[in-house]
């Protein structure tokens, strides 16, 4: 899902660089096939490095931008406990972004460069964070659905071939388990509450269901990058596989909550053992990826503003460090 931007027509990816010999590539693939971990200074194909940098940095950007839709409700959380839990979750997201930027930096890109690419609009982040959180129930929906989807993607990544990314993901997954439970718990409380609260929960599900399904990216048939990423074990399951698993699990949870899925074609296929669902509105997906979702501009504006307004602070710290070094040398 953090490669949504990669699976776009026009993103050709690279052909093998001429300096990479067939022997090197084969030896590398053999290591991957043997489930060996690739570490920062190991030889790796340029395309492997490039794909990882984009995937990991997109993942990091997603965590950082993801702080905004949830952060919106911190000052308005309806109880002190909910306020504290939501803040802990948002703090975790900042931390996850940091772990992931660290992992990406091991591949030779600086955080500075990655942030610059995000702010210029060149780098992508997960489409889901371009949707607004309009009610408290949305916070529940985000935790339940968005974190639920993220967990499906992240657990397999704990076994990805690149060591630093796998280790960052293990750290992330340890902290992630409470995020989804927090969201589900909010939904449960609302669904057991007043009619107005239950309606709030249903409305949140109505608005977040399809964008959550879009998080998994295009259908496998339209994901040209997937095959190579799977071969290199930086993607362990296909988009459709993960999406199907998510639907199967989540529909049951929605039943438990007493909520209705916003999909009149949703049916359980007895033979296959899976829920069948309507076709996703791919036009909406591409619009959002292209920058025209409900919140793309405001997410970027807030991020840019924080970065620009923080420049004098970062410079001050830098200047002080230089002065101290000069004083020590004198």
């Amino acid at each position, binding site marked *: 899902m953090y490669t949504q931007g990669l699976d776009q027509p026009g993103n050709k990816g690279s052909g093998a660089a001429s300096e990479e010999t067939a022997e090197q590539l084969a030896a590398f693939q053999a290591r991957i096939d043997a489930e060996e971990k690739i570490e920062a200074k190991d030889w790796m194909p340029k395309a492997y490095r490039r794909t990882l940098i984009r995937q990991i940095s997109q993942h990091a950007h997603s965590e950082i931008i993801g702080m905004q839709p949830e952060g919106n409700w911190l*000052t308005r959380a309806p109880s002190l406990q909910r306020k504290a839990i939501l803040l802990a979750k948002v703090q975790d997201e900042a931390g996850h972004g940091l772990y992931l930027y660290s992992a990406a930096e091991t591949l030779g890109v600086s955080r500075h460069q990655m942030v610059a690419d995000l702010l210029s609009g060149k780098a992508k982040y997960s489409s889901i964070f371009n949707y607004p959180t309009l009610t408290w129930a949305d916070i529940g929906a985000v935790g339940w659905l968005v974190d639920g989807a993220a967990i499906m993607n992240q657990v397999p990544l704990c076994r990805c071939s690149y060591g630093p990314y796998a280790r960052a993901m293990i750290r992330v997954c340890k902290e992630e388990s409470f995020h989804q439970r927090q969201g589900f718990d*909010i939904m449960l409380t609302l669904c057991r509450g007043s009619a107005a609260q239950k309606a709030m929960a249903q409305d949140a599900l109505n608005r977040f269901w399809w964008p959550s399904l879009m998080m998994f990216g295009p259908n496998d048939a339209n994901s040209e990058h997937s095959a190579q990423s799977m071969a290199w074990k930086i993607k362990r399951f296909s988009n459709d596989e993960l999406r199907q698993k998510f639907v199967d699990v989540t529909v049951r949870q929605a039943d438990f909550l007493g909520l209705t899925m916003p999909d009149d074609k949703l049916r359980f296929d007895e033979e296959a053992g899976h829920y069948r669902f309507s076709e996703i509105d791919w036009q909406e997906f591409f619009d959002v990826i292209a920058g025209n979702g409900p919140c793309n501009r405001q997410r970027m504006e807030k991020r840019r503003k924080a970065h620009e307004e923080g420049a004098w602070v970062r410079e001050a710290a830098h200047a002080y460090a230089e002065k101290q070094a000069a004083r020590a040398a004198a």
Partner: protein
Amino acid sequence: MTSDQQLTAYTLRLGDNALVLGQRMLELVAASPELEEELANANLALDYIGQARLYYSYAAEREGQGRSEDDLAFLRHEHEFRNLLLLEQPNGHFGDTIVRQVLFDTFYQLQLAALLECNDERLAEIAARAAKEVRYHLRHAERWLVRLGDGTAESHGRAQQSLDHLWRYTGEMFVADELDAAMLTNFDGPDLELMEGEWRRAVAAIVSEATLELPDAGSMAGGGKQGIHTEHFGFLIAEMQHLPRSFPGERW
């Protein structure tokens, strides 16, 4: 008020300080100058919200009227909150938040040091927990004050401006009212007169290390301890209390 009621009211006031400051820190989420500072800010806010909950829960228990920490946070009116005016000031820029932190935490650390020796065991316990957290916050804020003051010409100017603007809210911390007097006399609590001297020395030292100037003693703002706030407070409270007030009696 009986002396028991005074202790309860004092505890409530401690909760108000922690909650209002915590609430201001929440507004800074996703707006920090660097990712590492996002984590520091969230850590700080979590500590303050946590302290608020401890103070409020204890106050509610002492009161014995069946109110909860949430009733105290979300259903009291503006004038019932008795926080320091310093803490309800809008965030401004990073210099403002760092200066606010240094000015308040230097005071709060002294207050907690006294409270952990006071003769109310429960309050002393809460104070002991908070003291550990505040020691770390203060050190972090002091480090930043030095880097801003002794950084670039721009950062120096901004930090000095923050100090000059927020200085008028510092006097209130040391103006003892009946609750402060009761704490000192009946509960072996903080002595504001003693604390003021220590506070001045500590603040003067860090301001000097930061190559900044201590502002002239001007007129001081007051009223927080009587529930008379600045204009900013109404907006803060409206935002914070909106949802529970819109759905009276509901669980979240």
